């Protein structure tokens, strides 16, 4: 499903990823861990094409990402749900509209959209906050809205960048249960986190990064 082959990404003053190679199979749930600055976010950005690699090849669901044309990138991204580290919620839209945006972009009709948004908000335990605006929610609630938006389109791949970074342990558990449920429905999931508690005893593969190097893999 996702293949990295000798992928490197350099920025002006540092190297974010150095010759990273790995494969994630369809339906897997994989954790990427490492300290701050280890390249976790860059790795996810390379998958959803917010960044382009300087070296190496990335294949996502048989698409060679470097060969995608500008016009194909938007279609490609529709197969991926992303929980951004900074949530990227739109302040001028209420929670319903923030989640619905992912479906509006895909041209889903109004009726189906409503039922899917409410279902998604229910999973994120935010059904009662549908009319609220992001700035009135706590950090944890905003994070759950971001998750609801990422899963509402039932994407093939879900990428989550520190999805429990702003929440208490109880909420964190709820969020991880949500990811497991989505994974059980067939989505491939990559979660970048520095919180080892998330994957301890998970039985899932964990990729370890340090200073942009892929330093190993273990079972959580």
């Amino acid at each position, binding site marked *: 499903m996702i293949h990295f082959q000798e992928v490197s990404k350099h920025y002006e003053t540092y190297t974010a990823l150095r010759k990273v190679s790995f494969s994630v199979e369809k339906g897997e749930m994989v954790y990427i861990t490492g300290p701050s600055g280890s390249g976790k976010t860059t790795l996810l950005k390379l998958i*959803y094409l*917010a960044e382009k690699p300087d070296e190496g090849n990335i294949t996502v669901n048989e698409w060679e990402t470097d060969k995608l044309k500008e*016009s194909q990138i*938007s*279609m*490609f*991204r*529709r197969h*991926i749900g*992303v929980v*951004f580290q900074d949530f*990227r919620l*739109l302040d*001028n839209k209420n929670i319903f509209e923030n989640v619905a*945006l*992912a479906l*509006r*972009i*895909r*041209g889903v*009709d*109004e009726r189906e959209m409503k039922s899917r948004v409410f279902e998604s908000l229910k999973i994120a335990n935010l059904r009662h906050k549908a009319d609220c605006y992001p700035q009135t929610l706590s950090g944890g609630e905003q994070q759950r809205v971001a998750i609801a*938006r990422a899963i509402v389109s039932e994407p093939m791949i879900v990428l989550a960048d520190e999805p429990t970074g702003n929440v208490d342990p109880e909420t964190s558990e709820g969020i991880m249960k949500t990811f497991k449920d989505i994974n059980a429905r067939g989505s491939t999931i990559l979660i970048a986190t520095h919180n080892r508690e998330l994957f301890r005893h998970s039985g899932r593969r964990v990729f370890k990064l340090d200073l942009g190097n892929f330093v190993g893999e273990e079972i959580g």
Partner: protein
Amino acid sequence: MTLSYSFRIALQSILHEKWINLLSILTVAAGLLFTAITVLSIYNIDAATKSLPEKFSVMLYLDDNISQREKDNIMGTVRNDAAVEKVKFIPKDEALKELKTSLKDAGHILDGLGENPLPDSVEIKFRSERIDPEIVKKLTVRLGGLKGVHEIEYGEKFLSSLYSIMRGVKTVGALFIMLMSAGMLFVCYSTVKILFYRKEKEIETYKLLGATRGFIRSPFIIEGAVIGLSGGFLGLFGIMTLYYLVVLRLSLAFPIFKSIIFPVDTLYSLPLAGLFLGVTGAAIAIGRIRY
């Protein structure tokens, strides 16, 4: 559904950024109002000069005692010219009769004349589309060279001054309209560009969620269209107010204002011009932005 959503987003943005949008609408309206005043002026001057063909004619005064053959030659030459619409031969007796009629009560002053001093003459009327100082001059030069033609008379200076004034007015008008259009286009362009940059973060999120360029662009195009169209309707309201309140009122005191025509085409062409400028300005603005 996507289009109706784009409309909703555009209208929300117009209301959210109401001051900058209102300023742009007023600027476009003012620009279109001045453009409409210019077009209306040119239209009315043009309409006034179009009535000229009915009044304009060239008079050929013939020599005394010319032969019938020479007369026929002159008449034939005139008739064969493509610019000529009507030719009328006026015998000297008829000319004297006309003169007496035109003098009315003062007609008796001609009683003392022994012999009719007026010559035979030919009145030439031109096709309206061929009344041009150059065409008229060319024909008069040719006719002047014919045997039997004594003198040619027409308002040469009047005709050429009128046409050069018309040409000048049209050129200046066209330049003014082009300048105003460029200004209005720039206003729409800048407004949409500012709105785009203000929403840069939002647009980045749209992109990352998989939005197409069309999905991102369409609200801005709609916004440009609304700015242009609103400006067009406001400009139309302005010119109609100006016409009905000012021109019609003035015409009560000064009859010359009665002849000012308000073309019906303005009713739709002004909003359409606004719409075109708004959409074009917006399209240029977002077309030049890399995203």
